């Protein structure tokens, strides 16, 4: 059985590891373009410095945690499932936005989100979604002339 401190160290280690991976990727990408020299720095010079700095800071974070383990650290996992569902709805809506268009996507998004967060009946939620998306289309699309996607269905 792991102690809370060991668990914390593992969690911080995972976070530091993730940042190290990002740092490695930044360095790799920086090396794909000319680094230049100190006299004439190239496009990769500053990104390389940043990648190295991020890596050093990630190692520093892990080192400080090992040297002086914190009493507790929170989990990255949301405490309420609604957060995960909302993330899923959000990502699905982004995928749909240009394909199905603004009206369809936002009607679905508002209906599902209000149903999820407010425990509304499906009928009420769909009405809210429809009213909300139509009102938004009127304000942003017609009044402010923002070019919102019509999507394949209404195209």
């Amino acid at each position, binding site marked *: 059985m792991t102690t809370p401190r060991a668990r914390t160290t593992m969690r911080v280690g995972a976070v530091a590891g993730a940042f190290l991976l990002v740092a490695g990727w930044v360095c790799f990408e920086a090396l794909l373009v000319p680094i230049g020299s100190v006299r004439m720095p190239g496009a990769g010079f500053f*990104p390389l410095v940043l990648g190295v700095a991020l890596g050093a*800071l990630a190692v520093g974070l892990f080192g400080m945690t090992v040297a002086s383990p914190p009493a507790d650290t*929170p989990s990255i996992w949301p405490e309420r499932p609604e957060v995960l569902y909302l993330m899923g709805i959000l990502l699905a809506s982004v995928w749909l936005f240009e394909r199905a268009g603004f009206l369809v996507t936002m009607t679905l*998004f508002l209906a599902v989100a209000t149903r999820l967060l407010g425990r509304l009946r499906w009928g009420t939620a769909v009405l809210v979604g429809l009213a*909300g998306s139509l009102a938004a289309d009127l304000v*942003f699309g017609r009044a402010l002339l923002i070019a919102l996607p019509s999507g394949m269905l209404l195209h």
Partner: protein
Amino acid sequence: MDPLQSLLYGFSVSLTPTNLAYCALGVVLGTIVGVLPGIGPLGGITLLLPTTFGMEPVSAIIMLAGIYYGAMYGGSTTSILVNIPGEAASVVTCFDGYQMARQGRAGPALSIAALGSYVAGTLSVLGLMLLAPSLARFALSFGPPEQFSLMVLGLVILAYMGTGPVLKSMMMIVLGLAVAMVGLDQLSGFARFTHGRADLGDGVSFLAVAMGLFGVAEILVNVEQKVVQNVIKPKLRALLPTREDCRRSVGPVLRGSVVGFFIGILPGAAHIISTFVSYAMEKRLSGKPEEFGTGRIEGVAGPESANNAATGGAMIPFLALGIPSSPATATMMVALLIHGVKPGPVLMEQRPEVFWGLIASMYIGNVMLLILNLPLVGLFVNLLRVPQHYLFPAILMICFVGVYSVNLSGTDLWIMAIAGVAGFALRKLGFDPAPIVLAMVLGPMMEQALRQGLMMSRGEFAIFLSRPISAVMLSAAALILLAHLISVYKRALVRRRNGEGAEVLSVERPVSL
């Protein structure tokens, strides 16, 4: 032109019907943003940024600044009536403001907060008007090495004075700088981090990242917390403070104004820190410190004045040096850059209507807020009754429209969604994502200054230390880091001696930034 003439010119710009309307719209929207717990001034400015694209630059900046200081006013309403800060700078107002409301004195608390905010806001604009021109003249002598060193100092102070641990803030800064590197290199034209995608050639959309980190992530955090709001409805008949309330508030308001203004100039979470400093100062100066937290009017007057004065202070580095000191001013800078206006030492000469028009509009906006806020407090309180299951999806929908409208790009929506999820995760892990936004704005400028400095000196890093202003700034940055390392080492020693664990890495209850 002397400052008075310039100010009169500014009034002639900001008193046009269009600019007056945008100023009024900005302060009302700002108040709403401040009142609603799900969204802070930065989120509000970011959400409304796309609506300014069709405006004149001066109208755009007048409206965005109105949102910024309007939100500071509005934040106090939720602190006093619901005990939930509408934005981070109003946390301290909860201590005594809510206690006053529970004692049936919500009216005086709200009116002193509004009056104090008005006085502080006006005084800070006066300070801005007097200090910014001299600083801009001084900054005209800055070359690339000085500019680079100034940005390094600014980012070090940002990390030191931020709301999270210094090491984590520095990681966020470097991450933000790295994100800013995506796209075509300004000097050589090489594409970096784009993987051949043409839509990333101009870089990662600032708006998409900011909207994700402060719009989407904020909603996710609020959904997780599921805050139950018990709103205390103020009796409007008892809105005016007593003579005794006014007498006791004069000192805290004036002190809060000075403290807020000067702390506001510093990078980082200045408007938040200024409220804590003001509260601590009032508690120390008070003859009855034990009564703080039980409903003392000084505990409302000081911090509320300080956070409003900080908005004026924060405008100084942004307008005079072209270097934003907070994520909110960074967003305003992006708005000006989109309009082809570059803030900095030459702004006053090249675009005096923007500089002086903004300053004059802040005087007018503060008067508008005072006139609007007190009579309309009942209306703003009713906004708190809008159920969150309607409010949050509606805000997310506005995020979609706002991000998509800029480039009509689905990629930007993906960036927003990813930044939102990442922002939520970062907050859960105790990272404050605010420095990412600021670093994204400073990144290209910093890179250019570093490379130009090195080219000037033919590769000698000594150029950054041989020029006096640059050397002073880099030494100050090094001293701050050294002082922090020593204090961390000492704390670790004490903890080890006492056999305790290190500080908890959890983040405090996140509030809108």
